[in-house]
């Protein structure tokens, strides 16, 4: 028996293979993604479709829809992809089907493939400017590259994507807490809500709301060349009981209306919710009435963060992957484009673009 012992010890070897995990049968890099592009029930041919991912350092895939409105991407790695479309489509006019009209269509969606080898989806694009109105178009919140915690150059850019002039009178800009019940800051434009006509925003125009309307790139003894010049901002947030708050006399103010609040409109460098509302509900203690909300954006650097705002207002996160004190900004993929999912509506810009849309 003693002599046989070493050989008995050998027996487990026969059963060892694969004792940990089973090898998958499929290989990466063999995923097929097929996207049908539809506009008002019609499949759109010749539309360039962009497929990009944050998962890997791989370049964006581009394909053009065929006559059936299908764009195919294969073989590509298994990953979450963002699909973007911004193109000109020529379609029969709604009023006169015999004549052709040129539309700019935009669309975006997220592709989250399962373990199957093929992912098929349909993307319904909309005409640029659909769901129009006043939009939060850009938020710059990360601060410039610096090592002394400087982030006072934050700004919010609004854009009027409608064909009508909208008026800012009495509107409120809020930094939200947890959902609509919780308001962290509330600042209000001057004028009468809903009926005021003092502060117009023409169609297709931008409005810059600065935390401090000054040239942040040129502060004496505080060189911040990668910051931003906000001395010509359209509006400036101002808290009259914050005696240290900078006030540019040439720029009109959006004032704090929260009793006891002593801070400027400073927003988080990691994640936050920004909301604009028509000002019809000023009782901020019980939150903001959802019917008064004009636009809302939630941003967070992490895609797996907890949602802080109702999904009806924003189903995603802008700014995933952004670095604080990196000088980066978030802006809608095209001016005013809004599908109420900031994950696909926004892109990260390497530097802010106050008052204009990135290329």
């Amino acid at each position, binding site marked *: 028996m003693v002599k046989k012992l070493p050989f008995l010890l*050998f027996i*487990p*070897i026969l059963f*060892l293979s694969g004792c940990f995990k089973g090898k*998958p049968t499929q*290989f990466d890099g063999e995923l097929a993604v097929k996207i049908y592009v539809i506009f008002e029930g019609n499949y759109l041919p010749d539309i360039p479709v962009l497929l990009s991912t944050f998962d890997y*350092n*791989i370049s964006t895939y581009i394909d053009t829809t065929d006559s059936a409105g299908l764009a195919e991407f294969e073989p590509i790695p*298994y990953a979450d992809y963002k699909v973007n479309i911004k193109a000109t489509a020529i379609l029969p006019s709604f009023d006169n089907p015999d004549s052709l009209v040129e539309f700019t269509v935009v669309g975006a969606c997220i592709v989250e493939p399962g373990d199957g080898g093929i992912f098929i989806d349909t993307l319904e694009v909309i005409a640029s400017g659909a769901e129009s109105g006043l939009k939060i178009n850009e938020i710059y919140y990360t601060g410039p590259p610096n090592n002394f915690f400087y982030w006072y150059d934050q700004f919010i850019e609004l854009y009027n994507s409608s064909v009508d002039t909208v008026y800012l009178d009495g509107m409120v800009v809020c930094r939200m807490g947890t959902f609509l019940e919780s308001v962290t800051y509330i600042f209000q434009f001057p004028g009468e809500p809903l009926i005021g006509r003092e502060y117009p925003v023409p169609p297709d125009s931008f409005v810059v709301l600065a935390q401090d309307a000054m040239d942040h790139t040129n502060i004496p003894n505080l060189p911040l060349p990668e910051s931003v010049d906000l001395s010509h901002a359209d509006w400036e947030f101002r808290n009259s009981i914050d005696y240290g708050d900078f006030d540019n006399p040439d720029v009109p103010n959006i004032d704090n209306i929260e009793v006891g609040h002593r801070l400027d409109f400073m927003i988080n460098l990691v994640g936050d919710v920004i909301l604009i509302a028509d000002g019809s509900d000023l009782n901020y203690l019980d939150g903001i009435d959802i019917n008064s909300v004009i636009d809302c954006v939630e941003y967070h*650097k992490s895609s797996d963060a907890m949602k802080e705002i109702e999904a009806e207002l924003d189903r995603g996160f802008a700014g995933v992957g952004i670095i604080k004190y990196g000088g980066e900004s978030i802006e809608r993929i095209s001016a005013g484009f809004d599908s109420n999912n900031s994950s696909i509506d926004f892109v990260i810009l390497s530097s802010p673009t106050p008052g204009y849309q990135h290329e």
Partner: protein
Amino acid sequence: MSSCSIVLVHKLSLGTKSKDKWGHRMKKNVIKIFLISGILVFFSNLSGYENPLFPDIVIEEPFSSTIRTPMNLYQISVNPALFKNSYQEDFVYYRANSIDRINFFRRVYDPKRQRDYQLFFYTHKILDKKSTLAAAVRYNRADQYDVYRSLEKNFYNNYFSYIDTTKGNVKYDGPQLWFLYNYSLTNNLLLGFEIDYGIERSLKDVYTKCETVIRNLDLKFGAAFNSNNGNVVTGAFARYFSYEGQYNAVKELQDAFVRTYFGYHVFRDENPRSLNRKNDHKEGYEFGAQLARKNILVDGLGVQLSGSYGTRYTKITVGSTTIPGDRGYWVRDGFRIFGAVFYQPVTSNFMFQLFYEYKDFYDWARSGEYDVVTIENDEIMHRFGSVLYLPLMNKVGISSGFEMENIRSDYHEYIVKFDYKGNRINWNRFIDVKISLDQITNVHGKACTGKIEPYFYWNTEKMDIISFQYGFDRLFVFGTLGLDFNYEIWEPDGADMNIETFGLSVSYWK
């Protein structure tokens, strides 16, 4: 194959009937030197925090000591039950050494310079007729300078490596403990237990500062059977090892921006956060058996055969400390066979041995989020070599050796297609001379040349290697002191720059 350095072998049975022509004192001294050679083998078993699935069978060691005996069975099998057969005298050994490696030629994520320091203490003791105890303590320190981006000690050793955006210096240090116990259950049956435990910490000196904490555990259990005349030895062992690594990347004021590589070409930008953590968990098993026979047909002719099968699993998660993201895992399994034939008649100091090693392992990695294979690697290695020892007169011993290996690799990355099929040949040869100046003083010198055809990420077809070693040792009343110096140069083909290594070692044993 490691770089040129001396081939060390052991005397299987130090208390043999050898009719040594040397004086008694000299003979004892030689025995000690043989023992040192054996100790050096433990360096590979204690080889830090890697837990390789198949630890290298070290024929060569960076100390100059003329080779006189073939490898012992413990050395080729790592079965702790066979330790007692191989080392049969009490022994104590101390060593301090330093190695300075300057990478004028380097891969992207290699340090520009690395300095290693080690303090080593080893002892083994025959407790009684049945029990043998061995223990070692080692303190390791490695200073890496000008490391570009890598947060790994060796970026290229992993399929899932971790980098940031900065260049800095990193200091690694930590202790290792090794313990072995051998017990003779009967006259023929031996049992053995071995444990190797190490902790290592490191810190990168620029933000993104990265602190690593690594814990390593290696356990072996073995049994062996000795024939009554000692000519036949057979044994089997089981090994379990585990490794837990944690990399904490933090950045002052800004968020830490790190990347995780999948293979060597594709990476993922991790979500920036003030603390980004990579968790590296490894676990594995190895089972092996071995057989040795001495005095076959003629006196002094012997064979040794060892084989083992093993598998290892590595899981990587990266991201937040609370809910890290799954980045995948990889599995390696394979087997190794090692065989040696030696001839060393007891009537002479002449020794000749041939050895052959076959190693075959297969790696595959799975994506963290999808049930797909991202990396595959199939590697087969054939290695053979020989060592010859010729005693010349009473005071000079010369050993020479040759070693060659053929490695066939079939490597694939699937995320973005990359294929590499390699058929590489590495070899080296050496000659080593040891001269006894008097009864208590020895000097030795060794020269070695070789060539390696490195893996694709070295970006060179081949490298020529030349090394020299010099040293002496002297017996004092309190023990023996030795000093060794080593210089090695790697010259990549078609490059103006090279890799130079300087080593200095001071040792004491009794």
